[in-house]
């Protein structure tokens, strides 16, 4: 089995990036505001017309002790003038706000890459916290890179002197000073950031002024330093061609929240969201809590079980029940998922996957809950599973989950992951009118011959009957029920029939999903690289590079994990080899082998970090070699 540990070697860093793209990583203490800096740099990058992808990487600790290695927070952005779909492998530029940030990030930097370091933070205390005996700025250990070290702390203090801030408050503007420098380096407009600061600090105009002054000072420093010949040069990355339209940046968490709202509206239902705080899924609860005017009720339940149970209760009463969690929370919801399957009620369950098992790596990404989603319940308990491949795709997937849940009367699991949830990318705002509605029709009157709560339509879905409907009183529950009437029925033939019915209903969803497309390359050939979820970016880029070298390789990315698209088996068999890169130990690989008896080969990475393009490129090379 190929593993990343074998593939990754120093040579990968020599892989030249497309010259039209640049990777910048901001790294600092978790109190340094790196995520904020990265977010604003992202916006200005989008506005300059570059395509981009980001990767925020922050510690699990809320306020990790200052200056420590485990307290480092980083934000990486890859931007360019052509198709960008990953946050980039090795940064071209590393901005290190303290010794710990340098130590934890410098090994990723491309040889010859640029380090910008704040000497004001490279004091004995911080060096000791980062476990440096000698300052790396002085011992020659950074000779593989270009180093620009200057006292950003002091320069920031100087720039905000006139506002009378205390030392601590003044230093809080460091991130804006740094952002100003970065904006100069990549020839970005400062005005959107200035506007944003004015809004953010509307209640404290002096802080807005100070931050703007720091931003301007950082920008001016760039100009001066260039003139002064300090090795700092301005880089201009040309805009990427983009379809005309309205754009914004969106994180996966927001995209899921908006997609759920849109899905409920397309189903013409109020939405009920039961949630329990868990990293990294809470962002969806936060986003939806603000959207009451869209008919959204959010309920912070006492635990994960109550979160799903209340959502099931709301679905039973005629709302679209939704719950969202991460792996450990989904595990707790398992029994209730079975209840939703048995009672055949619509429900959308979002899993923002994180590193596992158990508490695992709460803030790091992984896609190791595929087995849990497809198989992880007692009994024969099938349910549809779909997986989003990017922040923007999460919007469409959330709508699709709502459609399947309400049209087929079934719980649906939507898999996302920490990377998609936190990462931002430009998103062309869709035209709401272009979204196809799927209005729900509740049963209002008993069928001919008497009420049959478990009668079936042509999709094998049972009717949805709201309490409050006169004359349609009936009882449902988790006990096996008689086909048709829904009365308790333990008889052998009935359980056989009902088990098959539940299975066939879910398998039948394949009739309503599109055929699997080849996202890059063609049907048939030497090698198909088959992925799902957030590995889309690195697979896409790796296949692009391999194809540019003339290699016969195609990329297939699966959204519908269960049921799988009808043509997938034949499609996979049209290739000599199938390679499945996953951030787990081979879960989709096993599913594909089981379903189609294809010799799918795994490429696995479970380091809590997304795949690098070069890792997949090397695996392609190995398969074709």
């Amino acid at each position: 089995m190929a593993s990343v540990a074998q593939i990754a070697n120093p040579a990968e860093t020599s892989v030249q990036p497309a010259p039209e793209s640049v990777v910048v990583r901001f790294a600092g203490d978790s109190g340094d505001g790196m995520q904020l800096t990265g977010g604003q740099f992202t916006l200005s990058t989008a506005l300059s017309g570059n395509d981009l992808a980001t990767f925020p990487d922050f510690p699990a600790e809320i306020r990790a002790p200052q200056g420590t290695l485990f307290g480092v927070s980083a934000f990486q952005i890859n931007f360019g003038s052509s198709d960008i779909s990953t946050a980039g492998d090795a940064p071209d530029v590393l901005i290190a706000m303290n010794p710990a940030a340098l130590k934890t990030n410098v090994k990723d930097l491309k040889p010859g890459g640029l380090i910008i370091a704040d000497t004001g933070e490279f004091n004995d205390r911080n060096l000791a916290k980062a476990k440096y005996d000698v300052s790396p700025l002085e011992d020659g250990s950074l000779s593989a890179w270009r180093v620009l070290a200057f006292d950003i702390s002091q320069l920031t203090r100087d720039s905000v002197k006139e506002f009378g801030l205390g030392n601590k408050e003044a230093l809080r503007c460091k991130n804006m000073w740094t952002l100003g420098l970065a904006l100069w380096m990549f020839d970005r407009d400062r005005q959107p950031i200035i506007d944003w600061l004015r809004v953010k600090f509307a209640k404290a105009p002096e802080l807005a002024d100070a931050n703007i002054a720091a931003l301007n000072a950082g920008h001016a420093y760039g100009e001066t330093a260039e003139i002064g010949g300090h090795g700092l040069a301005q880089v201009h990355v040309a805009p990427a061609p983009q379809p005309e339209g309205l754009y914004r940046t969106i994180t996966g968490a927001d995209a899921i929240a908006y997609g759920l709202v849109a899905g409920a509206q397309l189903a013409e239902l109020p939405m009920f969201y039961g949630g329990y705080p868990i990293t990294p899924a809470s962002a969806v609860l936060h986003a939806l809590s603000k959207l009451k005017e869209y008919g959204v009720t959010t309920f912070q339940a006492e635990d994960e079980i109550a979160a799903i149970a209340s959502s099931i209760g709301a679905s039973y009463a005629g709302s679209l029940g939704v719950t969202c969690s991460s792996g450990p929370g989904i595990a707790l919801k398992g029994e209730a998922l079975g209840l939703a399957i048995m009672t055949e009620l619509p429900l959308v369950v979002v899993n923002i996957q994180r590193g596992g098992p158990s508490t695992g790596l709460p803030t790091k990404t992984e896609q190791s809950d595929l087995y849990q989603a497809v198989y992880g319940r007692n009994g024969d308990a099938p349910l549809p599973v779909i997986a989003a491949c990017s922040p923007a795709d999460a919007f469409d997937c959330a709508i699709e989950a709502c459609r399947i849940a309400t049209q087929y009367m079934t719980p649906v699991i939507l898999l996302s992951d920490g990377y998609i949830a936190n990462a931002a990318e430009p998103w062309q705002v869709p035209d709401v009118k272009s979204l196809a509605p799927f209005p729900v029709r509740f049963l209002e009157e008993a069928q001919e011959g008497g009420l049959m709560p478990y009668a079936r339509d042509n999709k094998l879905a049972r009717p949805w009957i709201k309490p409050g409907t006169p004359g349609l009183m009936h009882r449902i529950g988790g006990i096996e029920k008689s086909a048709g009437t829904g009365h308790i029925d333990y008889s052998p033939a009935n359980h056989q029939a009902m088990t098959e019915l539940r299975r066939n209903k879910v398998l039948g969803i394949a009739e309503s999903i599109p055929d699997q497309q080849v996202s890059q390359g063609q049907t048939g050939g030497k090698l198909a690289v088959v992925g799902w979820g957030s590995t889309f970016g690195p697979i896409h880029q790796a296949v692009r590079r391999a194809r540019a070298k003339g290699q016969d390789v195609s990329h297939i990315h699966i959204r519908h994990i269960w049921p799988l698209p009808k043509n997938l088996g034949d499609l996979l068999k049209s290739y000599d080899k199938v390679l499945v890169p996953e951030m787990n130990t081979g879960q989709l690989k096993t599913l594909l082998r089981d379903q189609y008896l294809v010799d799918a080969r795994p490429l696995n990475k479970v380091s809590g970090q997304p795949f690098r393009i070069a890792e997949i490129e090397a695996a392609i090379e190995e398969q074709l070699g």
Partner: protein
Amino acid sequence: MNDMTPPQKTLPKDWETDQEVRWCPGCGDYAILKAVQRTLPEIGARPEKTVFVSGIGCSSRFPYYVESFGFHTIHGRAPAVATGVKLANPDLDVWIITGDGDALSIGGNHTMHVLRRNLDCQILLFNNEIYGLTKGQYSPTSREGTRSPSTPYGSVDHPAKPAAFALGAGARFVARGYDVAKQLPDVLKAAYAHKGAAFVEIFQNCIVYNKDVFAGFTEKQHAADGQLWLENGKPMLFGDMKKGGTRGIALDRDKLCLKVVDVVDGDWQAAGVIVHDVTNRSVAHMLVEMPFGPFPMALGILYDDPKPSFEQAVIAQNEQAASGKTPDLQKLLSSGQTWTVGASGPQL
């Protein structure tokens, strides 16, 4: 549909389903079912607007036997499911049927939170101090020393007290009754009348695994001295009620606790007997803690002091937050910092 027709008054038999009742012959659940079916017409409940939600256990089969909407959920989770039902449609009358294991062991967390949130619902906890459906293991309310298949040498843990648990969790209505008590419909009516979470502990006789465990106060010969039926505004009297009550509950002012006093010639005032005030939370705490044996079993409405209910607060906040805002999905999707890509590139 036929909205214009005024609803017909229901009869107890209208609340019976065609399902064969599957409890053991002689089970106390039959009497509770009858009491509920007798109560529903009297409170003017409508079958289509009534939902019975249950967990798992013998008691939780209850919804199958009531001609209303019913949801037999999973072990311990009925309060959570009921919360979703009521938040999605506050017009529904929601009844939660649970048992001592369901509500206080596996579902203890949900019971606590549905009470403190004060969801408008009726919670009927059938307490038989045993796990019946799994064949007789001791439960969280079993008395110390209970011998059962899982405790052949007797249980060693201290039992939970359902009414004390409910009050401690913040319940605004706490009542008690027992399966065959003729007063049970009145207790249920009061529970229904209370806006908010109404908690009713119903002592239930499991004739197979824990027979007669409440006989000390439910049997006819023990009723007079074993049962204290509380009535708002009335003195807490028991004993020979034909003589107006020969014993009563008074406050021991030195020890700040309750005590049993004799009442001579009906002069309860002279004996210092307390007049029951259902809104007195301090006394309610003492009543739920009153040990049976030295004291009678406090029955009826122990505490009833309504506060705004959870679902009403949620609705009010949702409405307030939504007021003046138009739900424009296109606008929502276009929120935040946007830019337009035109023929000449991106612009703010």
